[in-house]
C-alpha cells in the first residue's frame, strides 16, 4: 500500500507541482494517475521512489515513511518503468533485465537464467536476450523495460507513461499484456498516463489530477465516466464518455440472432445468388467477410469477393464492443464470436440499445468486466 499524506512539492522557482495532496493506493491493484501535462502526476509518482523529495508531507510504503530508508536501497525494492524504456544501450537485453538482481549480488549465471524466463513471461523469445536494445522495436523495448522492473520481484511497480511512445496497435497489445501479468502477479501498480482511455482501461482506481497538482477525483473508472465530480473531470474524460462508459457494462442478456452463412472455398452451386447479405466463414467457422446481396460466385468463393466484416464482438466482453461491432459492420449486424473466434450469431445496434434501456434501473454495473480473447 502506498500512502501520500498531504504531500506538496514546490520547486525553487516557486512553481507548485503538487498541492497538499492525500491519496491511498491499495495493495495489489493498478491505480492510475491521469491528468493534463503539468498536473504533477509524474512528480507524484517519482516521490514514491524518492526521485523527487516532497517539500512537505510524507509518503508511506506499507505504513513506513520512505524518508527513513536509503534511496538506492528503497529503489531496488520498487519496479520502475519509464516512457522511453531507458534500457542500457551497452548491455544485452538479458543483462538489462538482470540489472537489479545483479545489484543485489545474485550470481550472473542465475540472474541471466531468470532474465530469460522473464522475457518469455512478458511475451518475448529467449533468443532476444542476447540482442542489444538498439536492435529492438519500440514495443519490444517497453516489454524489456517491464521485465527489468519485475526482475527482483518487487511488490510495487511504478510506471511513468510506459506505453505513450509506441503506436496505438502495439500500445493496445502492451495494455492487454499488463492486465494479464497483473492477474498473475498482483502487484501494487501506480501508473501515470495522460490518456483517459488508457486510464479507464487499466485502472481499478483512477485519480484525476488538475493543473497545479490538485486531486480532482479519485474513483473507479465506471464511476468516473458515469458521475464526474465536476466540470473539469467531465471535460477531461471527454465528450463520448457515455459511449466509453459501455466498456464497463457487461453484455449478458444479449442474444445473437441467426444469419445466412457460407464458407470460403464453397462453389457457385453452394452459394446461390441471394437478396440479402451473407456472412462468409473460414474452415474454422471464423467470420471472414460479408458477401454483398445479389453477388454471383463463379468457381469458388474467395476472400477478395468479400466486404470486410467490421469489428467482432466476443461473448462476455463489454457492451461497447458489441455496439461497435454492429456499427462497424457494413450490414448493421455485428458478428459475435466465442473466445476461440468461432461464429455464434449476429447482433444489431438496436438490440444493444434496448438492453441498455432495460438496464437503466439499477444503474450501470460497476467494476471491470472480465473478458477473454484468443
Amino acid at each position: 500500500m502506498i500512502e501520500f499524506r498531504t504531500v506538496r512539492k514546490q520547486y525553487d522557482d516557486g512553481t507548485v507541482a503538487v498541492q497538499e495532496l492525500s491519496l491511498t493506493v491499495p495493495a495489489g491493484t493498478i491505480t492510475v494517475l491521469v491528468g493534463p501535462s503539468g498536473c504533477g502526476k509524474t512528480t507524484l509518482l517519482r516521490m514514491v521512489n524518492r526521485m523527487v523529495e516532497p517539500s512537505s508531507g510524507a509518503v508511506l510504503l506499507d505504513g513506513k515513511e520512505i524518508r527513513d530508508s536509503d534511496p538506492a536501497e528503497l529503489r531496488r525494492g520498487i519496479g520502475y518503468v519509464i516512457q522511453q524504456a531507458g534500457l542500457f544501450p551497452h548491455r544485452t537485453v538479458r543483462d538489462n533485465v538482470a540489472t537489479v538482481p545483479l545489484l543485489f549480488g545474485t550470481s550472473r549465471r542465475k540472474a541471466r537464467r531468470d532474465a530469460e524466463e522473464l522475457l518469455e513471461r512478458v511475451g518475448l523469445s529467449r533468443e532476444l536476450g542476447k540482442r542489444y536494445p538498439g536492435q529492438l522495436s519500440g514495443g519490444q523495448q517497453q516489454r524489456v523495460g517491464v521485465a527489468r522492473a519485475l526482475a527482483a520481484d518487487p511488490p510495487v511497480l511504478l510506471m511513468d507513461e510506459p506505453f505513450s511512445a509506441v503506436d496505438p496497435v502495439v500500445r493496445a497489445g502492451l495494455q492487454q499484456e499488463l492486465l494479464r501479468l497483473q492477474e498473475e502477479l498482483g502487484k501494487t501498480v501506480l501508473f501515470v498516463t495522460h490518456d483517459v482511455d488508457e486510464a479507464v482501461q487499466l485502472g481499478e482506481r483512477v485519480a484525476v489530477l488538475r493543473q497545479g497538482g490538485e486531486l480532482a477525483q479519485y474513483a473507479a473508472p465506471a464511476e468516473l465516466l458515469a458521475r464526474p465530480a465536476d466540470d473539469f473531470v467531465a471535460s477531461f474524460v471527454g465528450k463520448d464518455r457515455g459511449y466509453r462508459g459501455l466498456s464497463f457494462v457487461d453484455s449478458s442478456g444479449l442474444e445473437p440472432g441467426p444469419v445466412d452463412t457460407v464458407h470460403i472455398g464453397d462453389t457457385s452451386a453452394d452459394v446461390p445468388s441471394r437478396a440479402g447479405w451473407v456472412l462468409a466463414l473460414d474452415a474454422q467457422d471464423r467470420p471472414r467477410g460479408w458477401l454483398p446481396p445479389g453477388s454471383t460466385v463463379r468457381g469458388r468463393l474467395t476472400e477478395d469477393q468479400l466486404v470486410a466484416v467490421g469489428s467482432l464482438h466476443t461473448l462476455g466482453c463489454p457492451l461497447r464492443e458489441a455496439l461497435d461491432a454492429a456499427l462497424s459492420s457494413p450490414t448493421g449486424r455485428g458478428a459475435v464470436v466465442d473466445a476461440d473466434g468461432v461464429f455464434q450469431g449476429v447482433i444489431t445496434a438496436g438490440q444493444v440499445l434496448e438492453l441498455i434501456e432495460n438496464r437503466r434501473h439499477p444503474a450501470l454495473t460497476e467494476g471491470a468486466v472480465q473478458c477473454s480473447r484468443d
Partner: protein
Amino acid sequence: MAAADPLGTRREGGEPVLITEILAWLLDPGNWSGPDGILRQTLLHLFYCVLAVTSAVLLAVPAGLYIGHTGRGAVFVVGFGNALRALPTLGLVTLLTLVFRGRVALVALTVLAIPAVLSGTYAGIRAVPAHVVDAAKGMGMTSRQRLWKVELPNALPLLMGGVRNAMLQVMATVMVAAYVGLGGLGQILLTGQRINDYERMAGAAILIALLAVLVDLVLAGVTRLVTPRGVFLTARSGTTSRRRR
C-alpha cells in the same frame, strides 16, 4: 613547370627533388641506424606523443567524468577549452620551452592535449540519454554505480574521439621538441634544413605524416575494441535517438 615535373618539388635553385630521390633517402639503411637515425628518432617522436597524451588522459578523463557526472564546473570546461584552443599552439609551446628548459618542455604538449580529452570525456557523459541515466537511478544504482556501469561505457566513443583529436594535435606539434634539442623526427627535418638537404627534409616530413595517420588508425582500432558492442550498434543504426523527449 608543373607539367615538366609532375612528381617532384623544386629546390631553391629550381632543380627538382624527385620522389625517387626521396625514396632512395628513405630506403637507405644507413639513414635508419645510429643515434641520429630514423629508427631512434621515430621511436622518440612516438614516445613524446604517447607520453603527452597519456598524461593528458590521466589528468583530463577523471576531471571530465566528474564534471559530466555532477554537472558542476561545465562552464569551466567550455571556457577553458576555448581559451586553450584560441592560444597559438606554437607560441604556447615556445613560451613554455623558454620557461622550462629541457624535458620539462614536454609539459607544453600535455597542456595542448588536455582540452580535447577533457571536452571529449565531458561531452561523452552528457550525451548519455537522460532517460537511461534516470532509469539507472530509479533502479537503485548509487551515484558511483551509475557513473561506472552506465555513463562511462556509453561515453567511450566520444571520449576516445577526444583522445584521437588530442593525439593528432600533439603529433602536429611534437616537432618543436627538436627546437629544444630533444630530438624526434623534427630533428631530422631541422638538420636537413640547416644543411640544405631537401631529400632529408621531404623524407622526414613524409615520415611525420605517415606516423600521424598510422597512430590515428591504431587509435581508431582501440576505439572499436573498447566500445561496447551495443553502443556501437546503437550509434550505427541510430534507433535510440538521443534525448528524444
